[in-house]
């Protein structure tokens, strides 16, 4: 049986993993390659590495981190952050990543999704959607969650899949870093709308949150960052808990 995936996320700035609350107030969480290896050993099903460096220098460092992580671990990983052309996509995959996550660039230029999927296949293309509640719907935000757009998140999710995204990484900006749980309604709505796997992101704080995202939110995978980095909950805890609650996981 296909199992639900548990995915630690590493926000990488100048080679170090950091974590903020609602996209700001960064705290240092350690060396990225070391963390990636640790998670892989502890039973992570996949990893996500996001480059949040602002400088050219930081981007170069990040590229090296991707290469080193690819050499260090034998599980799949997705890379995102600052990817804005088909050439960027190729560069990330050539460095050893399995999937590329696209966010701001595909909102600005949706055709990039078509072009990237045609070049490397949908299975390697993840559309990352940062969504924030706005009355009774959700709006898409870009540039690391700082700039609102007029796009409805549910519409955009479907559009991104139609254009070639093989997976969606759905982050609730309202919940990110709060540890109050994932936005279940957002996840459930998107998951019922699209035919590709959905990764839940933003808000994990307790074990029950992960289960709710899968069972009620219909997510195929759950992503979290700070609960892992600061060893609040281990991967083994999560898998045991989910398994006891009837969620298929890789033990």
């Amino acid at each position, binding site marked *: 049986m296909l199992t639900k995936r548990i995915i630690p996320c590493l926000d990488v700035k100048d080679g170090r993993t950091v974590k903020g609350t609602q996209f700001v107030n960064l705290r240092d969480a350690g060396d990225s390659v070391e963390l990636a290896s640790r998670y*892989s050993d502890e039973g992570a099903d996949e990893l996500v590495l996001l480059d949040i460096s602002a400088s050219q220098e930081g981007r170069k460092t990040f590229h090296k981190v991707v290469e080193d992580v690819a050499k260090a671990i034998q599980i799949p990983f997705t890379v995102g952050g600052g990817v804005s052309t088909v050439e960027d996509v190729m560069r990330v995959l050539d460095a050893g990543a399995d999937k590329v996550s696209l966010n701001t660039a595909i909102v600005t230029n949706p055709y990039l999704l078509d072009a990237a999927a045609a070049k490397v296949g949908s299975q390697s293309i993840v559309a990352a959607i940062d969504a924030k509640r706005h009355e009774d719907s959700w709006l898409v935000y870009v540039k690391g969650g700082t700039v609102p757009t007029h796009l409805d998140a549910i519409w955009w999710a479907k559009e991104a899949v139609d254009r070639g995204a093989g997976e969606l990484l759905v982050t609730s900006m309202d919940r990110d870093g709060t540890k109050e749980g994932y936005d279940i309604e957002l996840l459930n709505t998107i998951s019922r709308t699209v035919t590709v796997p959905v990764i839940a992101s933003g808000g994990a704080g307790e074990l029950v949150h992960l289960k709710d995202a899968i069972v009620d939110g219909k997510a195929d995978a759950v992503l979290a960052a700070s609960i892992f980095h600061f060893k609040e909950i281990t991967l083994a805890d999560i898998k045991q808990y989910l398994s006891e609650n009837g969620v298929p996981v890789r033990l």
Partner: protein
Amino acid sequence: MIAVIDYDAGNITSVCNALHKIGAEHFVSNDRKELARAEKIIMPGVGEAHSAMISLKNLGLTGWLTDVEVPFLGICLGMQVLFDHSDERDTRCLGIVEGTIRKFDTPDATGQLKIPHMGWNTITVDREHTLFQGIPSGSFFYFVHSYYAPVVRETVSYTEYGAKFSSAISKNNFYGVQFHPEKSGEQGLKILKNFIELC
């Protein structure tokens, strides 16, 4: 020396990293003369059958591949193109194994069957096989694919996702795995090791 075929159909970096990890000397090539010197051949592949077959054809490798006599391992798409035909853009493949590659059914009303089949799933090993030596039936491997190979005479292990499909096949010197051994942790490395040391 192991040759890894680079035919512009996806990610060879991961396969090379994995070979490096298990200490297997290897080289990357798409040149028939160089490949002919290899003791074993690995053909990775992600992406799409039609483009993959065109790449192989443009490199002059299609005819040559069917006559390869050394142990050959196709991974993911590299396994699928060993079959006769793929429904993916109605593509004629290498025809080493009889059968047609089909697409997973569209997700059902409950949304249970997402495509691609992406993530860790178990394999059931049908019979004793060198590729799976030391790997128990029921082990987890990492899959990413939207098309699947049917269960055929050459099936060594099968996996279930909506339908039952071949997750590993073997015919003479040709071996194929639908999952990604290079991305399946220790068990995946063991598959590569078995191929290199035992097949």
